[in-house]
């Protein structure tokens, strides 16, 4: 596993980066913010289902409003439109995050259930040197705690290193690092994965074909993630690499260590994002101050551009997705909005011909997406994958963990709406997931099995 160590260095670091959930806006105008807070406080008590509705859109509307002349006078006139936006797009954000998380989890669970390779124990990463094959429970527990401490300290060191690099503007170094790590992910892990899947299904494939397939996959992936590409393709690639990473974790982390690590990393995430000196928080704030996007290779952006009732005859020749970008691009250029999504999206897009200014008004209903770090994807999938792999082959546990994680995500988005700043996405979901995993595995399973054997229904 030595080779994993050398290369995984770059792997670990992106993981830490990714464990935060951010709203897609830069610090808004204070007066407007107060206005929003007041209007939210005046509502009925916040509740889970509705709050996702109101949650992210005030963020987006803050953006949309800032992109106007920024004059507070227009606040009142825009209140109604905000609320309309709230209604229409609020729940949409939750779904926009549900879908990729669900897809990632499905890929991981499907692979775990079908491909034997990922559930065999073939050694451990160099980060978890203590074996868990010890006879006594206490020793095993101790080993897993030690493993966790080592892993978490590695992650902390990497994160601090990254933040330091970012602060001192060593962008080239960071970019090189990220490119190297995503290269490794895209090529090496995909090769292993494909090899195992082909083995499982007993499909023969010769090396030239394999080389061609992997080369294409990897090259397009590199371009999509680091440069420009269709949004959906980029999202698909990010989901793929998260799933691959999660599979690697599931395979190479020993049992108890994995659970303790999950717990510890959610605590770490909580601290790193919320404490004033936390590395992730500093990273986010620095990025906000400089109005720069956080590296596209580390964040999943659900941003979708929306144009309502626009009929652009000259874009009829292009595909619909391109039409959306055109309009959004113009909107951005016209609005000169400093929000993070904007700069990232515009960075990813080639300059498109500008359309006349009259399109500005129609673009007020443009939507900013919510961003979720890739580390969150990975750890959610690790949790569900471990549940699928080790819960006595039981689907109920997997399903329970899945629902728990989704509900945690809902709650986190709710809190995002209330607090309007970067929040850790891991703690709530992982806590729910862990609680449900252990309780379902130990308590619900005997109950359901007994019921099923007597064919009783509740």
């Amino acid at each position, binding site marked *: 596993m030595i080779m994993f160590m050398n290369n995984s260095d770059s792997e670990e670091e992106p993981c830490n980066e990714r464990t935060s959930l951010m709203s897609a806006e830069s610090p808004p105008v204070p007066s407007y913010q107060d206005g929003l807070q007041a209007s939210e406080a005046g*509502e009925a008590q916040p509740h889970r289902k509705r709050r996702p509705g109101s949650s992210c859109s005030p963020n987006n509307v803050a953006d949309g409003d800032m992109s106007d002349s920024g004059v507070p006078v227009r606040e009142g006139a825009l209140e109604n439109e905000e609320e309309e936006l709230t209604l229409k797009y609020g729940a949409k954000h939750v779904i926009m995050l549900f879908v990729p998380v669900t897809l990632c989890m499905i890929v991981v669970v499907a692979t775990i259930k079908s491909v034997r390779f990922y559930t065999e124990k073939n050694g451990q990463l160099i980060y978890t040197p203590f074996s868990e094959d010890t006879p006594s429970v206490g020793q095993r527990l101790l080993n897993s705690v030690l493993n966790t401490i080592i892993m978490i300290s590695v992650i902390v060191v990497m994160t601090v290193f990254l933040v330091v690099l970012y602060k001192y503007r060593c962008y080239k170094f960071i970019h090189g690092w990220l490119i190297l790590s995503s290269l490794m992910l895209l090529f090496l892990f995909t090769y292993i994965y494909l090899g195992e899947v082909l083995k499982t299904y007993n499909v023969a494939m010769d090396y030239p074909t394999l080389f061609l397939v992997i080369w294409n996959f990897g090259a397009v992936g590199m371009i999509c993630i680091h440069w420009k590409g269709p949004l959906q393709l980029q999202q698909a690639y990010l989901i793929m690499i998260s799933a691959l990473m999660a599979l690697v974790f599931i395979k190479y982390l020993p049992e108890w260590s994995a659970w303790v690590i999950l717990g510890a990393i959610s605590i770490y995430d909580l601290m790193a994002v919320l404490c004033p000196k936390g590395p992730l928080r500093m990273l986010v704030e620095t990025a906000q101050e400089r109005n720069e996007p956080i590296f596209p290779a580390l964040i999943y952006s659900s941003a979708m551009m929306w144009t309502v009732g626009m009929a652009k005859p000259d874009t009829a020749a292009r595909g619909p997705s391109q039409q959306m970008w055109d309009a959004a691009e113009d909107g951005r250029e016209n609005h000169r909005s400093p929000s993070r999504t904007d700069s990232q999206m515009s960075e990813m897009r080639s300059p498109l011909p500008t359309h006349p200014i009259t399109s500005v008004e129609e673009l007020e209903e443009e939507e900013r997406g919510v961003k979720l770090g890739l580390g969150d994807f990975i750890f959610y999938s690790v949790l569900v994958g471990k549940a699928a792999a080790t819960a006595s082959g039981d689907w109920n546990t997997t399903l329970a963990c899945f629902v728990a994680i989704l509900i945690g995500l809902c709650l986190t988005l709710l809190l995002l709406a209330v607090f309007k700043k970067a929040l850790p996405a891991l703690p709530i979901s992982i806590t729910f997931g862990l609680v449900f995993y252990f309780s379902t595995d130990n308590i619900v399973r005997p109950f359901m099995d007994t019921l099923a054997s007597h064919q009783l*229904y509740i």
Partner: protein
Amino acid sequence: PALGLFLFTIARDPLRIIILIAGAFFWLVSLLLSSLIWFIAVKASDPRDQPLQKGLLIFGVMFSVLLQEAFRFLYYKLLRKAIEGLVALSEDGCSPISIQQMAYVAGVGFGLMSGAFSMINLLADALGPGTVGIHGDSQLYFLTSAFMTMVLIFLHTFWGILFFHGCEHRRWWEITAVVVMHLAVSGSTFCNPLYVGSLVPSYLLMAAAAAWAYLLSGGSAQNLRRFLLCKS
């Protein structure tokens, strides 16, 4: 069929999906609590005493039914408050989703989760090798399980509608009727493997609940006739 329901009616609107997942979550929590109770009871009792185990199982089932209904009530309360929030936020004073739709979605959520929990392990095992009923059990195990699950999912949906309607209009007899029906259906499964005793009453109850829910939702025999004859 339940999946078809989901695809056609719920998957379009993100708000409904959230309500669905939350409904499934509530059912899950109720299941957790009820199995916790059962687990404690089993551990505290003698594992070799067969009739006692059976009795405990029955007790567990009944308790679970009651807990499910309690959680449905809690979920109703939550959704009521959510609707108030929705109304406050909307621009024209009415919420984008009515309480009936919510009732429907909540019912489907409960039903899907309970159906999934009942069926998934069976399906996974069904993919593997083996013969059904080789030890003298019924050979129709899978088939009857499938039908029972389907009827249960539909029943949960209808119960959701009835329950919420009862809560809305403060008609306690509706609520108790739902609880009693649920208990009856679960109780009838005790007759398994004498399938006549469980499947037939369940389907009859489902038909009754369906008709009741349909009437409550504003349908009528005329609507039905027009729909079936495809008149405009």
